[in-house]
């Protein structure tokens, strides 16, 4: 979707266990939900 919107130089960081130990952990585990840091650039 980032590419479709016109972004370039896209990078995705490693997964972070955002919900571990929180109330939402069960659903997060069910669908393998993790947090990620994204970087994308608008073309010059």
């Amino acid at each position, binding site marked *: 979707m980032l590419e479709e919107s016109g972004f370039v130089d896209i990078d995705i960081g490693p997964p972070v266990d*955002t*919900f571990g130990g929180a109330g939402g952990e069960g659903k997060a585990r069910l669908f393998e939900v993790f947090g990620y*840091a994204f970087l994308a650039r608008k073309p010059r």
Partner: protein
Amino acid sequence: MSEALPVDAVTLRDEVRAKYRDVAVNPRGTFHFHTGRALARRLGYNEDLVARMPESAIEAFAGVGNPFSQGSLNAGERVVDLGSGGGFDCFVAAEQVGPEGRVVGVDMTDEMLQRSRTAATAMGLGTVEFRKGIIEDLPVENDWADVVISNGVINLCADKKRVLNEVIRVLRPGGRLQFADIATGKVVPEAAVRNIDLWTD
């Protein structure tokens, strides 16, 4: 012709606003996600920065990752934060861009705006401004921002393409989007995608 959205955008927005109103008013409440200083540490924010952040500036933090792990911001840069909540990421950004930079946080929830504005005033941060709005229609002029940041907010919008089009509009050519958000490793069943309660619980 626009694509059909999986859920009604306005209904979802109302549910998200109600959820984060609760966080703003009662940040130590029980939610399905972590909040506050412990969450910032969990997500890898700079330990010294987290330690010296006033409680009022961090207790309603409810991010899902660390957008600054993709690189620190540069002195003098202009920043827009999509869904700025209690303001924590804006305050981190303000420290990185320094006195010549500018940070604009955008949020739709009055209680969060009140919280973030109060914290910014208490911290004496004149370079940070919070504006009321939705991220599908940003109250920011074209090509204004060097960087757009966000943390756990874009996933809560039904029309993500519209959000990304707005990011493209407000970024200067060559500007960057640094954001944290959740993603699934498994295909989510269609029925679950269309269950609006699962978007916020």
